[in-house]
């Protein structure tokens, strides 16, 4: 199953390259090159993926949209992982009341579906990239937290941690240098898979009308705007849909592959 990792990495690299090189690759400006006279043109030169209802080049918008989607996915996942790891490690390490509190909080977060939570936060903050990052970054850390906590609990009593403690390392140092490096693997796996879900969440929130602030191109907005064009100008809806699919698929495969590589148990299981 190394295939997962390689193919996932390939897809993700393509998307990352698209995002980085959008400025070079995109034949048109994603916002200003809007000519209503050439709206809803089918794919063909010079619009290789056609144009949308506003007459904007779909390809260019997808390329620039990759920036937004990656930004949403990666940044929100970094926030999630940071919160989850910080809470999980500290809860597992210190135990006691703090552990109870973190546990309770995690249960609450698990009980409110993240889309509902994100919806509420977006209602407060209003549409836009920063709000989206916060909404998706604050609502999806419960699994990270659980796993970090569980791993910390089992690491806590191991000899190297005890030795570090005996050697007089501070708690902060032990958590940072002894525990964190040992749980980075699983966190990386959850994080990678989480990037995929965040990209999907962006699409879902756009559908509900609370995503990225137009006219900034985002795949969720493109898909949402074009959903009625499915019959008359399918390209405007199909290409952003494919972009989302490929990206999420890439991160999911990458996450699976990472897990297989990091968890030898899983690997033998898939012999």
């Amino acid at each position, binding site marked *: 199953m190394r295939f997962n990792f390689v193919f996932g990495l390939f897809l993700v690299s393509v998307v990352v390259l698209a995002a980085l090189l959008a400025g070079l690759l995109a034949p048109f400006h994603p916002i200003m090159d809007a000519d209503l006279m050439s709206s809803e043109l089918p794919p063909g030169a010079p619009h290789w993926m056609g144009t949308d209802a506003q007459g904007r080049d779909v390809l260019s918008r997808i390329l620039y949209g990759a920036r937004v989607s990656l930004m949403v996915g990666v940044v929100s996942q970094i926030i999630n992982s940071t919160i989850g790891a910080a809470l999980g490690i500290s809860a597992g390490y210190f135990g006691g009341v703090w552990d109870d509190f973190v546990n*309770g*909080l995690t*249960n*609450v977060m*698990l*009980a*409110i*579906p993240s*889309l*509902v939570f994100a*919806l*509420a*936060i977006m*209602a*407060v903050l*209003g549409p836009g990239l920063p709000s989206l990052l916060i909404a998706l970054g604050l609502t999806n850390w419960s699994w990270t937290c659980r796993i970090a906590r569980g791993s910390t609990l089992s690491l806590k009593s191991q000899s190297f941690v005890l030795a570090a403690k005996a050697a007089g390392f501070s708690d902060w140092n032990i958590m940072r240098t002894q525990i964190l490096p040992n749980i980075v693997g699983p966190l990386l796996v959850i994080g990678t898979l989480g990037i*995929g879900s965040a990209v*999907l969440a962006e*699409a*879902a929130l756009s*559908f*509900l009308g609370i995503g990225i602030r137009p006219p900034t191109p985002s795949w*969720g907005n493109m*898909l949402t705007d074009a*959903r009625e064009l*499915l019959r008359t100008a399918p390209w405007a809806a199909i290409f952003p*849909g494919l972009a*989302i*699919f490929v990206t*999420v*698929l890439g991160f*999911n*495969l990458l996450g*699976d592959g990472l897990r297989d590589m990091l968890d030898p148990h*899983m690997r033998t*299981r*898939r*012999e």
Partner: protein
Amino acid sequence: MMGFVLRRVLQMIPTILAVVLIIFFIFSVVPGSFLTSLMAEGRNMTNADVLAQMNAQFGLDDPIPVRLWNYVSGLLQFDLGISYRTREPVTSVLGPRLWPSVQLAIAAMTFAAAVGIPLGFMAALRPGSLFDSLTMVTAVSGLSVPEFWLGLLLMYVFALQLGWLPSFGYQENSLRHLVLPAIALGVSPMALLARTTRAGVLDVMNADFVRTARAKGVSEPRLVRAHITRNVLVLVLTTMGLQIGSLMGQAIVIEKLFSWPGIGSLLVDSVSVRDIPVVQGAVLVIVLWFLVINMLVDIAYALIDPRIKVA
């Protein structure tokens, strides 16, 4: 068993209270209000006096602590308040939405389990085969599609092109209307279940007791049926429980798309008109559903796995 249930119910209370507080505070700082939502259509010019009267009637001009106190003390008497929008008790607004939501969640889960578990099983029985690879690629793909996109495609294909199923709506006592939304909603849990089942079966197949069973001369069908299934079920049950528990909240997009009268679409509508009591109530229902389902899953565990006791 009763003791277990009682204990679990008591444990839910702090969670529920926390949810109430979180949602309350989020919506106490939310911009816009029910009153301003009334004029969003631009159709009616709103009279300032009428607005002021409505404000007073709903207690919207009370300070936040007073509103919180009123809400929580009402909640303790199972009073969820009055909907700003319909002016009915929140319970009677939520009531009719509950069954469609539950129906959709159960139908989606049934689809997910009926397809995902056998797929996962079959894939695991031939690990590395073409079927296995195809199934798993399909599963990962199922997890990678925006669901409204999928719903829309299903609508076009099965309702419009083939004319097999109605494209939208809710009909009492009609399963036909349930099919498309249930599939659209069920695809992602289906994919998850297929993966979990496959991993679980592979795990169990490697277990020593399976070798024992083979050494006993148990036939393959019986091996799968009597020895593997139940052990896998224990693993799969967790995934199923978490999925069905969160389906009610995840259904928002699908409910909107298919005009399904569930809690999710009620929640979105209520958020957009700032009908806060209903938003609170809907979130509460979604959370309760999650907690109760998880309790039921734990009970089911105990029934399936003798190692776990709930008493």
